Structure formats: C-alpha cells, structure tokens
C-alpha cells in the first residue's frame, strides 16, 4: 500500500478573493472535472478492450477452438456418422457459423470493440463467453457478485486491520522517536519489498506443512459445515494465513511511512507552541498532528477501499481463495473478454468517483482548501 505523505503546501490551494460566486465556481469545476474523468475512463477501458483481444488475435484463437470442438463433436456423434460427407460438412459449417454468431465473432472487431465499450460504460456487463458462476449462470454480473464476498472478506479484514493498526502504532512510535521499537520498525521496513504471496508460501510451509495447525488453502472445509458457528470457525481458520501474509507484507513499511509523516508534522512550530503551552499530549496529537494530516489519511483510506475491489490475484491463487483476483486470472486464461472488461470498468468507475469525491472531502476537512479555487 503506497502511503501518500505530502506536506500541506503541495496539496492545498490557498484561498484567494474571488469575484465569482461560490455556486458558479463549484458547478464549473464539477462539470469540467467530471468530463475529464469520464474521458479518462473511456480511454482506459478502450485500451483494456484493445489489449484484451490483442487487435483481433484472440478472435483467431477462439475461432480455431470453435472449429475444433464442433468438428469433433459432430464427427463423434454416432447419429451423424451415417450422413453423406457433403451433408455433414455443411452441417459442421452451419454449426460453426451459428456458434460464432452466438459469441459475436461474426461482427468486425472494430465495431465489436465499440459495442463492448458502450456496454461497459452503461454497466451492461452482459454474458461471459466461457466462464460460468457456481450457480450455473453466465451473467458477468452474477459471476463477479458471487466472488465479491470472498474478496471483500479477505481484503477487507486484512487491509482495514493494516490501516488502523499502522496509524495507531505509528502515532505511538512518533511519540517515542528513537527508542528500541522505533528503530526496529525502521530496520524492518525493507521487509515490505517482499510481496504477500511470498510470505504466504512461508506461512503455508510453517503452519500448514510443518505444524499442521492450519489448512493449506481454500475457504471452508469440504464439505462445508452446516452449523453457522462451525462455518464461521472454518472460515476463520482458512482466512488466517492469507490475511496474515497480506498484513505482514505491508506492515512495517506502512508504520514507517506514517511514523515519518507524523514526525515531520510534529516538528512544525505550532506543535512546539502547543507543547510549550502545556497541552496534554493527547490533545496535541489530535488537534495539531492528526488534524492537518487528515486529508492524506483519508486519501489513503479511499484508495484502500478501491483496492478491495481488485483483490489480490497471486495471494488468492497461492491460497486457492475463490476471490475476484483469481476469477480475473481464470477469465484471462479462458479469453473471457466480458469478465475482464467488466472487472476493469467497475474499478475505473470507483477510481474516478473517489478522485472526484476526494476534492470535496478535502474542502470539508481542511478549511484552507476551496473546491475549484485557483
């Protein structure tokens, strides 16, 4: 998790006297901002669609697969083996054409790209090409929704824990700058160069293979316990290792970044002043250190929420966790463009919305910031 650590001067626009009324300024800002964000999303999605079908290359793979599958199934069907070769050939060609039409492969790629784009932008996610949800549906919406709880659970628990624990610990450390724990965190911060799945492998090795106390992977025992309590316990047991690896891989760097950030703010003159006045350290922290850092903390939190959506592809793969990240990876392996595009558009919309809303939130929490002010 990248922690945004900026000094206040960069991110704020100092209030200036303006002749425009607030309403005109804000509405003009809103329109321009929404327009640029929309264009950005459209361009991003169109690029993703282009890459996802590699300029038509994927079509050829899929056409080849359809031809193979239909030729084989008709060739092996005993009822059709009596047919004249010419009739059978015609039947094969017709079936192929029908299948290609079903998947939309008969439409030129350029037009199809725009169709994908307009469907994506209107959140009409459509039907998957090859994947099905566990309940048997081909609706992209249902496939993604089915996987969402698993990802939200794993990512939500680990990221929220990481977020709050690192802020609290960082505040604590910034108070005791230079003591043993502080130096330990500084020394351990390079451990975050290692990605979570890598810690995952070590976790599996220690807790699953050697100690045999926690499962290797999966989400619940098989068969799933019918009792609600047992189900929750089984879930907890399966979630411990992936969540722990996700937390561990960012833990020290996150604390280190927040700690350094808080330290920079606590060396400001007004903090020294507050301390000199004899304010209790809790008040100093709340009013003079946390308050000015609030915009940055909110930004980090907002991006954390967005990151929940994308899941952790590789960690989910290592732990066989049935989440969105792994679904996306499977979708790519099956050339399932609607799922890839569907997942990307939701991420893009969430990102755009967050970026848009953050400007207003800054204005709410920081009196120096004015929406659309120059």
């Amino acid at each position, binding site marked *: 998790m990248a922690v945004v650590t900026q000094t206040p001067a960069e991110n704020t626009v100092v209030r200036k006297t303006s002749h425009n009324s607030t309403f005109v300024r804000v509405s003009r800002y809103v329109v321009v901002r929404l327009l640029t964000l929309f264009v950005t999303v459209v361009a991003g999605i169109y690029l993703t669609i282009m890459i996802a079908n590699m300029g038509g290359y994927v079509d050829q793979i899929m056409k080849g697969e359809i031809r193979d599958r239909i030729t084989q199934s008709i060739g092996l069907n005993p009822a059709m083996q009596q047919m004249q070769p010419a009739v059978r050939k015609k039947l094969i060609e017709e079936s192929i054409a029908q299948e290609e039409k079903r998947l939309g492969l008969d439409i030129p790629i350029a037009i199809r790209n725009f169709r994908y784009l307009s469907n994506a932008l209107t959140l009409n996610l459509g039907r998957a090409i090859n994947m099905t949800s566990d309940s048997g549906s081909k609706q992209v919406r249902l496939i993604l929704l089915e996987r969402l709880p698993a990802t939200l659970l794993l990512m939500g628990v680990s990221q929220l824990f990481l977020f709050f624990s690192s802020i609290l610990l960082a505040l604590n450390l910034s108070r005791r700058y230079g003591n043993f724990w502080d130096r330990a965190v500084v020394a351990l911060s390079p451990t975050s160069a290692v990605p979570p799945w890598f810690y995952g492998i070590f976790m599996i090795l220690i807790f699953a293979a050697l100690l045999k106390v926690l499962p290797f992977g999966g989400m619940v025992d098989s068969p799933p316990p019918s009792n609600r309590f047992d189900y929750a316990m089984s879930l907890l047991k399966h979630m411990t290792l992936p969540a722990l690896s996700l937390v561990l891989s960012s833990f020290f760097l996150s604390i280190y970044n927040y700690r350094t950030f808080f330290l920079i703010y606590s060396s400001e003159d007004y903090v020294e002043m507050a301390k000199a006045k004899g304010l209790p350290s809790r008040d100093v922290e709340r009013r003079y250190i946390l308050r000015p850092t609030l915009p940055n903390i909110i930004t980090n939190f907002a991006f954390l929420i967005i990151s929940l959506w994308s899941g952790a592809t590789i960690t989910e793969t290592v732990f066989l966790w049935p989440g969105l990240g792994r679904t996306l*990876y499977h979708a790519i392996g099956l050339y399932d463009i609607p799922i890839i595009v569907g997942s990307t558009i939701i991420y893009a919309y969430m990102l755009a919305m967050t970026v848009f809303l953050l400007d207003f939130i800054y204005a709410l929490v920081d009196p120096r910031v004015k929406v659309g002010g120059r």
Partner: protein
Amino acid sequence: MRSWTRASKLVAGNMNTLKSSLQNIFYYPSAVVGMLVVFLLVFTAVYALVKIPYNEAIRLWRGGEEVWYQNPKFAPPAWINYFSAKKYSESFAVGTSDGTMAKAVTPGPEGTSTMSASYTFDFSYDYYPQEMILYLSSRYKEKQPFISAEWLTPDGRKIRIVNSALNQKQTYRFSQDEKLKTRLGTDEVVPQLFSNPETGNLMKGKYQLLITGATFEPESDIDVEFVFHGQVYGLAGTDHARRDLMVPLLWGAPVALAFGLIASLGTSILTMVIAALGTWYGGWIDELIQRITEINIVLPFLSILIMIGTFYSRSIWVILGATILLSIFTSAIKGYRSIFVQVKESMYIEAARAYGASSPRIVFLYLIPRMIPLLIPGLVSSVPAFVFLEASLALLGLGDPVLPTWGKIIEDANANGALYRGYYYWILEPATLLMVTGLGFAMLGFALDRIFNPKLREV
C-alpha cells in the same frame, strides 16, 4: 512515495552533494549489508554466465530425459545430511566409457573376448536408495554380446541380478525386473538388495556390482554405465523432471538482476526525462503527459501483463518491455513534475536561458542532472518489486518458456505440491535467494534514501 519538497531542497544544493553523500554510505549498516548482497549477486551472475554458458544452460534446463537420467527425482540437496542424524544416500553415476568404472577385456579364441567391470562402493547411509539402473551399450555386427551382473553384499552373499543378450542400447532397471523380484521373493528389489536377509534391516558396508560380458566378434565391445539414484543429490537437489536445481538457481541470478535493473533503470530514467520535457516545454505536451498518466492509472497493471503473457508472448523481454511502458506514466511522473516546476524557475536556469542555451541542452544538461540524487534511491528501491514481479508471473504459469529462473522453480514446485508432499528444499532454495535479493536492494535503497534526503535523516 516520500515527500518531494523535502528532496527539492536538496536539489537546490550542489551537485557535489552526490559525491559526499555517497561517502556517507559506510555509516549505514543496512547499506553495507545491502551492497554486500548486491555485490554477491553480481558475482554469482557472472559466475553463472561463465560457468554455464547460455546454450549449455538451456540444454540442461530443457534437454530432456537423456540429459537428466543420471539424477534421482525429488532429491533434496546432499548437505541436509549435516543436519540429520539419519543419513540419506547420495547419488552417483559411474561408467566404463569415461573410466570411472574399471573395465578389463581378455581376448579369447576366434575373435571372442570376455570383459569384466566392477564397482565397489561404501554404503553407510540410513535410507535405501531410490533406484539403481544399468545403461548398457554394445557394438556388434551379427552376434549379440552377452552380459551378466552380480551383486556382492558386505556379508559375502553373491546375488545374481541379470543374464541377458545385449542390443545396441539397453536400459536395465533393478526395481522393474520381474525375474529378480521372484528370485528375491519381494516386490521391493532395491531395499532387499541392501538388507540383511535374516532381520530385514538395512545393512551398511561395502557393496560391489560385478559385471561380466562376452563378445563373439572381433570388433564387438560392451560399455556399462551404473547409475545409482540415492535420496539426495548435489548442492541443490533435483526436481520432478530429475533436473539439477543448481542450474536454475545459478541462472536465476543474472536473469533476476537483468530484469530488475533494466526495468527500474528504464522506468526511472524515462519517467524523469518525460517529466522534464513536459515541464520545460509545457503547453499541450505537458497536458498530454498528464492525461496519459491518468489513463494509465485506470489500467489494471497486473491483468494487462497476464493478458500479454497469455495471449501474445511469454518471453521475458516482451514482458519487460510492457512492464517499463506501463510503469512510466504513474504518480511518480507527477512527483518529478512538481520538483521540475520549482527547478525551472531557479537562477541558474535563468542564467542558462540568458546566454542562449538551447532547450534540449537545458533539459538534458541542467535540469535532469540536478535530479540524479533523487533518482538513485528510488531506482534501487524499485528493483525488488520488478524482481518479484517476474517471480509472480512465473508463479501464474507465465514465466519465460526458455530461461531457467527462480520463479520457474517455485512454479514447478507449487504445481507439483512440493509443500504438501514435503519437498521443502524445492521451494526454500529459490525463495531464499529471491528474499535475499529483494531485501538486499530494499535495504540499500532505504539507506540511500536517508542519505540523499537529509530531512529523513533527522527523523
């Protein structure tokens, strides 16, 4: 990630700070450790490239069963015996063609000859070997040579193994011989050969394989190779395909270094140059760069790499190129931009403009060099991310199809259930190397960051 204004104060300083800052590096223990790791890694990479040239590495990694037949499957490295009270048998292979197995030929009447070869070895381990195999080859025109093998145990028993006429090439596996199974009265031939027949326990001591052959033509000849698949192998062990893991472990170093360094160098330098050009020329160029950056942030980075790997090419160089392209236009470009905006207004740039320096000259000789102290820590710190990216993609089955890398070992191990089946060495070896590499660069990067960003040093 870190504050840019803090760093920009440094930029306003002098270029000599680069030199004096670098002299400070020895005061940071983590920097010294990091440098040591990087140095060792470079040494390993050079050693690997010299010791196992590219073509040889590819042959050893992708050669096929005839390259790997001498090695046992799933064998941990031999040094685990130092940590184990019970000793695992070590693998070896000897043959008459390279003289590691003594061969004596006695000519007989009418062009016939008898040949005998024997190999004596000390078996002082606590576990039975996996398998023993004889690779027999012979030259003849019409009359096939004949061969027989006998097994001599430490307690003086002599066991007949096989009597057979020879083809040009023949493989004899001890454990697969049905006749031997009936003769010994067990399906477990190899353990039986190393056991005390009364107690059924493993028997240590000197064992001998005795091979005698007879040829019936003047030019006829027999060669024998005895391959002993123990429980452990070499310094690194072997995988499911009998490949010596030493090859990918050594070769992983240059590949990881090249991928990590090229990606981080390419990304940081291109980011900086583009940010500098955008800031200097301003206008629509600047605007375009900002828009591209915003679009790039929307793109799903890992998904696009997976798509390129799945649909187009798994070559490490294609992935490297895509990685660099996708990593240029990130939030880093905005960070550089905000500093360049300040530097652009400084006095010395004003002076350069006044004497009529051309725009490219100002950008490349005056603007960019000022940023080098800022570039170095970021560059070093971003190496681990790229090294692990290669391993991550390999884990997803999108590793380079040709090159042996650390990530490929982990993928193979994972696909073969190494953790589940207890082949820990298989994952631990590449994982340790990856971890040491990542931590080495990260520690060096962190220390450099503190050296070059004085504000960080204070806190």
